[in-house]
C-alpha cells in the first residue's frame, strides 16, 4: 500500500479470528479507511507497535488471546485510538463505563460498520484536534522566545513540534471539517499588538 494514501484516510485495524468475517469487515471499510486486517490478538499488538492506528474493530471472542485481553494490553501501552468491540450478543446497554468506546453485534451489517467507524473517527478527530491546538500554542510560544538557530538544538521544542505535526496530520485524516478549523486557528494573532 502506497504511503500517500495512508495520510489521507483514517487507519483502521480489523481483528477477528474468523478470516471470512475479518475480510468482509475490511472490504466494507474500503474507501473510508486504510484497513489492516489480522486474525489474532498477538498480530494485532504487533501492528500497533509498528504504526499509528486510529480505529480498531476488535472481535471479543477469539481463541488464545481474547479481545478483552488485547484491550487490557492496550491499556498498558499508549494507544490513543478508538476501540469498537464486536460481540456475539446484544444486551442493549449504553457504553458508558464500558472498557471500550462502542460495540457492534454479530452479524454486523455494512451500513452499521461504516456508521460506527465514521462516528468514532469524528470523536477521535476532535479530540486530537484539541490536543493539536494546545501543542501548537506551546510551540508558537517557544518560537517567539527562542531564535531559529537555537530552536534546532532545543529538545523540548523539537519534541513538541513533531508531536504537533503528527496530531495535525491525524486530525486532518479523521475529520472532514478540520481544514476550516485549522485555518481559523492559524488566523488568530497570538503575539499581540
Amino acid at each position, binding site marked *: 500500500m502506497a504511503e500517500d494514501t495512508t495520510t489521507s484516510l483514517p487507519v483502521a485495524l480489523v481483528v477477528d479470528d474468523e478470516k471470512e468475517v475479518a475480510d468482509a469487515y*475490511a*472490504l466494507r471499510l474500503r474507501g473510508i479507511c486504510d484497513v489492516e*486486517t489480522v486474525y489474532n490478538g498477538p498480530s494485532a499488538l504487533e501492528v500497533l507497535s509498528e504504526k499509528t492506528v486510529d480505529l480498531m474493530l476488535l472481535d471479543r*471472542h477469539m481463541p488464545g488471546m481474547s479481545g478483552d485481553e488485547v484491550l487490557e494490553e492496550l491499556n498498558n501501552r499508549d494507544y490513543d485510538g478508538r476501540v469498537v468491540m464486536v460481540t456475539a*450478543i*446484544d444486551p442493549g*446497554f449504553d457504553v458508558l463505563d464500558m*472498557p471500550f468506546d462502542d460495540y457492534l453485534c454479530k452479524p454486523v451489517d455494512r451500513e452499521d460498520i461504516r456508521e460506527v467507524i465514521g462516528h468514532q473517527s469524528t470523536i477521535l478527530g476532535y479530540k486530537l484536534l484539541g490536543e493539536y491546538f494546545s501543542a501548537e500554542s506551546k510551540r508558537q510560544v517557544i518560537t517567539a522566545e527562542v531564535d531559529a538557530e537555537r530552536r534546532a538544538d532545543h529538545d523540548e521544542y523539537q519534541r513538541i513540534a513533531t508531536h504537533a505535526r503528527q496530531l495535525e496530520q491525524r486530525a486532518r485524516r479523521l475529520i472532514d471539517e478540520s481544514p476550516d478549523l485549522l485555518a481559523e486557528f492559524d488566523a488568530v494573532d497570538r503575539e499581540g499588538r
Partner: protein
Amino acid sequence: MDEQFERAPVGILEVDPTGTVRAVNESADTLLEVGSAAVVDEPIGSVFPMSVEASVSQAFETPPEERLSVEEFYPDLDRWFEVTVVPADDTVFVYVRDVTDRHRLEQTLTQREADITRLTVINELISDVLAALVEASTREEIAETICTRLGETELYDFAWLGERELGTDDIAVRAASGATGRTLDNIESALGTGEDIPEARAVNTGQPEIVQPVGANDSVPTSIRRAAFADGLQSMLAIPLTYGSTVYGVVGLYTSEQDAFSSRERASFGTVGEMAGFAVNATRHQSVLLSDRVVELRLRITDRADPLVAAAAEHEASLSVDGLVPETETPLCYLTVDGAEPADVVESLAATEMIESIRVVDGTGGSVEVGLGGDSLLGRLLSRGGTVTSATFDSSGGTVTVDISPEEDLRRLADGVTRGFDAEVAAKRERDEEIVTPQAFRDRLSNRLTERQESALRTAYLADYFESPRESTAEEVAGALDITGPTLLHHLRAGQRKLLAEFFDLHEDHPRSQGQ
C-alpha cells in the same frame, strides 16, 4: 478461446501480460458471477472480485513471469478460490477453482477437535476437583479448593463460593478465585439486598442453573448483567452444594466462552456440588470432636413440665448432674440428690412420663441413675448434638450448660428446646476447648494417685493381672509388693476410680472422684 478450454470444468481467464482480460470461459463466468460480455478488454482488477490480499491484481502490476498459486477468500461472493496464474508466451492463464466446501469442512473439523479437547480438559478438571475434595478437611479448605481449581483454569474466568448463613436464607461469599472483575462486586451487592440471582435460585431449588448469555438474560439483575458484559463474561453455571435435601451453599462459575455449559457439564458439575456437600456435611459432624472452638450456651428453665425441675421444686432438693451416657438408646443421667431423701425424689420421678427408668445407686451418697426420655430438656439437648457439661436443679428452677460446635445451627437448637419448655438462653459465649495432651493427662493423673496406688496399678498391669483370664492372681501381685491381698485390692480400686474420673473428665470436687 478453444472449445476444450471454453467447456473446461475449471475457471479459465486469458489475460494479456499487461493485465487486460481477453477471454473468460463458462466456469470462470459462473464462479466469478460476472457477465462475460462486460469483462473482455477490461483490466483484471475490475473483473476479479476483491479480496483482502488482492493477490491477482498485484500479480499483474508488472507482467507476470512466474507461476503463482494462491488460495483466497472473496467476501463479496462468500467463496474460497484456489487461483493459479500461469504465464505462457504472450498470454497469461488464470485458473480458478472453488475450494469453499473443503474450507468449510476443515473449519468443522477444527471445531470438533476443539470440542473434544475441551471435553477432555473438563473431565480432567472435574476428577481433579473431586480428588482434592477428598483431601479437604475443613469448610474453608473445601471452599478454597473448589474456587482455586475452577477459577484458575483457562476454561473459566472466575469461580466464587457462597455459604448459606446459619439459620437464615442469606448467602455470604466465602471464597473466590480468578478474574472476578466488576461482576463479583455486583453479585455481592445483590446478595446484600436479597435480589434474585441464579446462585440464590440454585440454593433454593438444589438444582444447578445455567445462564447464557449472561449479558442478555432477564433472570439476572441488570447491575450484574452490565458488569458481566463489561468484563466480557458470556456464560455462567450455579452449582448448589447439596447433601440429601440440605443445601450448604453454592458455587458460581463464570466464563467468557459463549454457550460454555451444556447439559453434560451441568450434570458433571452437579456431581461436584454433591461431593462438596458431602464433604461439608462430614466436616460438620467431625467438627465437635476436632474443633478447638465451642459455643457454650447457658439455659435457664423454670417450667415444671420438665420432671427434674418439678422434682427439685416439689422436694425443695438440689439435683446436680454428675455425668451423662448419651450413646445408649435411652440416655442415662447420673445425678446427686441433696437436701431430700433420694428415695422420695426417685418416687416422684418414676411417676412421670419423660423418665424411662430410674433407680437409686447409693442411698447415703444420694446418687441416682435416670433413664431420660427424648422429650425431657436434657433429652432434647442430647438428641440435637449438644454436650451437656453441667446441669443443676433446685427449688427455683434449673440451669443447664451445653457445648455445641460453632458449625451447628444455634437457633435451631435453641428453638427445639424453648418450643417444648418455658426456657430461655441466659448466656452464650464462644470459647476455646481445652485440648489435653497425653502428657498433661498423665501428669494430672499422677498427681491424683498416691505412690502406693500407682505402684499397685503398674505392678498389676505388668504382671498381667488385668488380662482375661488373669496371668497373676491378686495374692501373687500382693506378694510381689509385700502387702496383703485386701490392701492390694483397696489400692487398685482407688487407683482405678481416679483413673476413670480423670478420663471422663469429672471435676475434682465431684463426690464420685473423691476419696483415697
